């Protein structure tokens, strides 16, 4: 089992996609020598560079935090994975402070998409998604505030899960937006995703025999999606469902993110504004300037949206929508086309993920089995129905509708 760790370490050291920020050779070898039991015995994994690792500074993708006080303990979810025998081999690249959908970092560079190195991996957990897609590790952790797991999972062709709000412990995770922050896994198979979710959440999901009621989201989700993604959705037997609050919910998520992110960083911005990644700094400052009345109206919208989604789950069990509006855009483009408009990729790749974030529900981005550039579909359910969701996805995986596009590590 140690050899899996050595293979991962070697692959990480030869990483051509700028997925890793630190490779923990000594720590991984030490843990591999002692971690011989558990459901994840000897499984190498990586974490986005915002999880605490005992003895190391938690950078959150920021150069100014390279000399931060080292963490006293591992983040709780890391502790849980290690307790089952998994071996941490490194930290992965991200948008600074998790504010972006691109993994374009002014200090640590851009993570390249393993399927097309001239294209974005997505973000903000792009290093983790790329590390899994490139076959370096079978498991990596990310955080998802507005789509930062689902967007890179979609663009890199792997599985990624945003758990329900408050399902995962956030101790030892650098915060961004407390109303929306979650953490979750990336994997190459649904079975691995389920196992990682169970270990991270300290739950065991029963197998269900129920037949779920499926709805595909129309309206806002269809207007802003690529025709290929809509065609993939159409292959799945599902009833159409329009949630008319979705567009306003996306705007509410955007505003809440700006306001809470700006407030979190305000003190640091007062003294070290020029040490930030410029693109992140300017977004945070603008967010801090948002009028409180606007923020409160966004919170009001969030409450209405959650009520609408809860009502929808009275008549269906699983909602389907594309994870991203497009496949991976070229790095040098900087923009994407959505619904006939040219917009910033960094700010808009998560347009279809943000409403579901605001709903607080568990969502899995599942890779569509296809040739060419990958993309994912979101499958969302009500909190507590995760077992039903995993069983349904297992059927689609078995039918060949879903499946990761995984490359072999160099």
């Amino acid at each position, binding site marked *: 089992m140690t050899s899996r760790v050595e293979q991962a370490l070697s692959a990480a050291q030869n990483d051509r996609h700028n997925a890793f920020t630190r490779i923990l050779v000594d720590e991984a070898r030490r843990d591999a020598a002692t971690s011989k039991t558990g459901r994840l015995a000897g499984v190498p994994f990586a974490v986005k560079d915002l999880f605490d690792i005992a003895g190391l500074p938690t950078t959150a993708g920021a150069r100014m935090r390279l000399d931060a006080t080292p963490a006293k303990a591992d983040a709780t979810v890391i502790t849980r994975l290690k307790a089952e025998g998994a071996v941490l081999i490194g930290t992965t690249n991200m948008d600074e402070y998790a504010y972006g959908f691109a993994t374009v970092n002014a200090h640590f560079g851009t993570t390249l998409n393993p399927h097309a190195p001239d294209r974005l991996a997505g973000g903000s957990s792009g290093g983790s998604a790329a590390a899994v897609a490139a076959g370096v590790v079978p498991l990596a952790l990310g955080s998802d505030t507005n789509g930062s797991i689902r967007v890179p999972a979609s663009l890199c062709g792997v599985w990624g899960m945003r758990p329900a709000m408050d399902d995962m412990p956030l101790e030892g995770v650098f915060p961004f937006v407390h109303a929306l922050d979650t953490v979750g896994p990336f994997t190459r198979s649904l079975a691995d995703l389920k196992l990682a979710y169970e270990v991270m959440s300290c739950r065991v999901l029963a197998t269900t025999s129920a037949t779920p009621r499926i709805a595909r989201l129309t309206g806002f989700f269809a207007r802003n999606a690529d025709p290929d993604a809509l065609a993939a959705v159409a292959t799945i037997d599902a009833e159409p469902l329009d949630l008319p*609050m979705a*567009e*306003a919910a996306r*705007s*509410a998520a*955007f*505003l809440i993110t*700006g306001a809470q992110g700006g407030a979190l960083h*305000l003190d640091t*911005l*007062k003294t070290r*504004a*020029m040490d930030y990644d*410029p*693109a992140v*700094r*300017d*977004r945070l*400052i*603008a*967010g*801090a*300037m*948002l009028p409180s009345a*606007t923020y409160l*109206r*966004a919170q*009001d*919208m969030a409450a*209405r949206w959650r009520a609408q989604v809860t009502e929808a789950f009275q008549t269906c069990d699983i909602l389907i929508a594309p994870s991203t509006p497009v496949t991976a855009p070229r790095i040098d483009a900087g923009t994407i086309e959505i619904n006939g408009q040219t917009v910033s990729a960094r*700010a808009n790749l998560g347009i279809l993920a943000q409403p579901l974030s605001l709903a607080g529900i568990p969502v899995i981005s599942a890779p569509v089995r296809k040739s060419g550039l990958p993309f994912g579909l979101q499958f969302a359910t009500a909190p507590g129905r995760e077992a039903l969701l995993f069983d349904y996805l297992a059927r689609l995986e078995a039918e060949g509708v879903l499946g990761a596009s995984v490359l072999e590590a160099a």
Partner: protein
Amino acid sequence: MQGPTHDRITETAKALGLDLPEACRPGVQANLDLLAQHARTLDDFLAGDET
């Protein structure tokens, strides 16, 4: 020439205790414009929902 928007950014930054570097100003302005678009989307929806 500095216009009313420039003044508003300066005043808001001052109220927050931010000594806004000049280099940040165009980016902050662009992001404020984007936030304003989303605020309008929200306002339009809420106005329609309340009628």
